[in-house]
């Protein structure tokens, strides 16, 4: 009896030991994932771009993990933490509060499409010491002496500076006439206002454009009739249009068609090149419309674009997908250097290290100046051609030649 009991006890202990060591090995085999936050709108009027950011992040995480995760952290994989920033600044700020409170293990975050949201979100993440990569444009984002905001896109002001001369040259080269007058219709979000501010602060004068009409509206727009009527009366050579909501971008083009206003439209931002635009609009109507965007699926990314189409059914790759995808690789590079799960250390590294030429953002390098702007960041100019917005600038990324809308 006694012997039996002892045997039973022994065997139980052995089993327990075995289980214990197995758990230990398993823990060794699967290190704790590294949490990356994506704080972007996936509800409300900005849900579409936020959803596309999520696609980019997911693809990026799959690829980073497939490449072995962070090797110096025992191959720890990335794990996406999705936080809905909602459709208003206050919701975004609230979401950021929740993010830093509920996910103390986050090492970094990326977000939040609209500059206005990113401004609010980073007020909170900065105080919490969490590094944030952002594809948002507004110059204000990196004018606040924050240490942990890293702007991968060229700022609105910088984009306008790069884009305007190219647009002017293109018009002159293909029509023989250099445009002289411009009308600006913009929404009042931070990125759009930053662009317009830079234009009015001398940029228009530098390229020889006279501003004949300007209107600022609060998105979403209910009716574009009066805006388009005004454009028709002023007869500008060019129309700069800066929407951030897809429905706004459609509305103005539809009205222009209705009123038969044939002014070449140059947009800033991606709202005018989202696939949804085609749901209610003729591809023909869009043909020739150009937009200056910080990033776009371009030459050399064909495989990635194909995977996006295959996995999510996205017909083309917008900035939101490609930039967020690139963010994951940038974070991997930085973590491989720090070998630390401390966000403070990561922030320090991002501020001080050059990770070489940029593969997923146009132009420049994977390094940030002391304000947090990516050094040498350029942009892409896209154009609707045959029902698809394609990259037409810069040449090394372009998949098609630009065509001036009036030149046909």
């Amino acid at each position: 009896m006694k012997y039996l009991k002892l045997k039973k006890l022994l065997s139980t202990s052995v089993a327990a030991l075995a289980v214990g060591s197995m758990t230990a090995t398993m823990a060794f085999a699967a290190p704790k994932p590294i949490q990356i936050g994506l704080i972007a709108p996936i509800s409300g009027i900005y849900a579409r771009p936020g959803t596309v950011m999520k696609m980019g992040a997911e693809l990026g995480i799959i690829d980073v993990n497939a490449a072995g995760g962070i090797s110096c952290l025992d191959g720890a994989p990335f794990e996406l933490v999705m936080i809905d920033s909602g459709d208003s600044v206050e919701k975004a700020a609230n979401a950021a509060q929740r993010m830093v409170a509920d996910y103390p293990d986050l090492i970094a975050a990326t977000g939040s499409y609209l500059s206005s949201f990113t401004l609010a979100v980073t007020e909170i993440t900065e105080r919490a010491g969490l590094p944030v990569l952002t594809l948002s444009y507004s110059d204000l984002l990196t004018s606040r002496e924050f240490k942990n905001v890293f702007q991968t896109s060229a700022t609105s002001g910088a984009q306008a500076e790069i884009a305007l001369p190219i647009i002017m040259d293109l018009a002159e080269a293909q029509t023989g006439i250099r445009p002289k007058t411009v009308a600006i219709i913009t929404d009042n979000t931070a990125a759009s206002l930053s662009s317009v501010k830079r234009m009015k602060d001398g940029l228009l004068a530098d390229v020889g454009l006279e501003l004949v009409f300007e209107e600022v509206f609060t998105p979403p727009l209910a009716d574009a009739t009066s805006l388009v009527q005004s454009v028709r009366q002023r007869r500008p050579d060019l129309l700069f249009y800066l929407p951030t909501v897809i429905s706004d971008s459609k509305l103005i083009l539809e009205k222009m068609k209705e009123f038969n206003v044939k002014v070449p439209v140059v947009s800033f931002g991606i709202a005018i090149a989202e696939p949804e635009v085609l749901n209610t609009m003729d591809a023909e109507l869009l043909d020739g419309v150009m937009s200056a965007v910080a990033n776009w699926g371009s030459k050399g990314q064909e495989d990635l674009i194909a995977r996006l189409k295959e996995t999510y059914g996205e017909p083309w790759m917008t900035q939101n997908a490609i930039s967020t995808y690139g963010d994951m690789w940038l974070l991997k590079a930085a973590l491989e250097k720090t070998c630390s799960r401390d966000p403070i250390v990561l922030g320090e590294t991002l501020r001080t290290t050059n990770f070489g030429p940029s593969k997923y953002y146009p132009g420049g390098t994977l390094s940030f100046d002391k304000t947090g702007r990516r050094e040498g960041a350029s942009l892409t100019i896209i154009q609707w051609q045959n029902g698809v917005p394609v990259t037409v600038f810069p040449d090394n990324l372009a998949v098609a030649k630009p065509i001036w809308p009036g030149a046909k």
Partner: protein
Amino acid sequence: MLKEIIKSLLPFFMLAALYIVLAMFVTNSYYQLIMTLVIIWAVFGLSWNMLSGYTGLISFGHASFFGLGAFATVLAQVNWGISPWIMLFVSGLIGAASGLLIGMPTFRLRGHYFALSMLAYPIALLYIFQWLGYPELSIPRVLDNPAAYMQFSDGRVYTVIAMILLFVVVVISRIVEKTRFGMALVAIKQNESAAEAAGINTLAWKLKAIALSGAIAGMAGSLYSVVILVITPGSVFGMLTSAQALTVSMFGGAGTLWGPIIGAVFLIPIAETLHAELGNILPGIQGVVYGAAIILLITLAPEGIYWKIRDWLKKPSDEKDAPQENADITIVPESLEYTKRPMPTGDIVLSVKNMSKSFGGLKAVQDVSFDVTRGMILGIIGPNGAGKTTLFNLLNGFQTPSGGEVLVDGVNMVNQKPHVMCRAGIGRTFQIMRPFKRMTIHNNVKVGAYVTAKTEAEAEEIAADALQQVGLSSISEKLAGGLSTKDLRLMELARALAGKPHILLLDETLAGLGSSESKEVVAVIRKLSEGGVTVVIIEHTMQAMVALVDRFLVLDHGEVITEGPPEIVTRDPRVIEAYLGKKWVTDAKN
């Protein structure tokens, strides 16, 4: 007084201390934020309550004050580096000033018109701030000595700061509730005309209320901007912000300082937690919570949780009181029979000269003149539509005459506001009774006493005295809402008496009373007259009046048809004709 206030707030102090202790155990920064927001919304709710809860003038526009406070605080720090510690108080001043600016034009409107006009201000401000180029603003981060700029890395500090603000606001609210300020506001809520007639300068009190309310809202907005870091015109001037104040107050119960606190404690955590947990699956869940809360509220407790619970707790004791009511009549009519007394022959205290009023083509009152001597009871009679009530409204300022004079003790008082007339010694009651239903009989009467009373104690004394005179002392702590018509008439009489009038204008005080009740009221009026008060009473039935008045003035179609002692007037063929038609004149003669 202060002791009493502190004593009445003991439960609040205990709960507040408990709340702070609880808050100290919260480590999640988001829940720390919510704990602070609960208090800020409670403060904002109390601000709304200060105006709308007490006066009943529903404001859909409290976001104006809140937003101005928030923007002032952030802009002052962004542009001039002024600390929110200073701006918290400056925002209070800004809120008060904007309250006055908004109140002055808007108080001309009443009811729905007032509510809708208030809605316009935050909407206008929202667009103005957008147009000024502030789509969003954030509090600049200060690294050197952040505490001097109200910046703390520990969210619990904000909870304590907010609680101190709430503490101050609660004490202020209670002081207002307990003094003539609050009484005046509640009187305005229950019945603005009656309040005016009781000598309350309603516009002045309403302006004080909106200034105080604006100040509190401005401070709430200021603190909000500090804890929330980022503000937009939409977040502080938006419709939802005004609605937040309204929802927490209405949910908890408007008109009491407990209401907004109960509302905020219930609604904000539920809405925020749901938003935090389900926000990405069910966007806008917060709005659903507020919507559901309002629906539940309207169906189950239209006046709010606080009042529902209070009524529920009070009910049993009220029932106990009920049987005593009949035993409470202390005035036993001395004589119900008509006893002619000598016609008073004092000096003329009220003289009406050529009073006229037309509404378009209708001449409601035409060229009416009469004199009232001190101590007399003048009965103004006439059939329905004769212009009796209009005449009263002209006498005490509710309507502006088209022509004529009202001499009170020889001074022309025509076109004066009702509360001024009241102060000049003219008290009145209304044909349609206008009790302050949620107040006790005693407090109803006390409102009237503020006209002459300098202190609370004096007001108490005057009210008790007036109740004594009409015989309602024993039921003085009952709510006016449940009284019989006779008691209401007597209460109104007492309220008018509390203003210590020389002249009482009684508008159909006997209407709707049975004959025995009517005799009781007549006895009271006669007693008052014997005490030296001059009475002018309107009535369209003559029976009870004959036993009461010294003199009749008969109106028909807005004109005086005759005047004289009762025994002569009642036999005057013109009077009979006016009442009964020509046919009866001949019958009456026989």
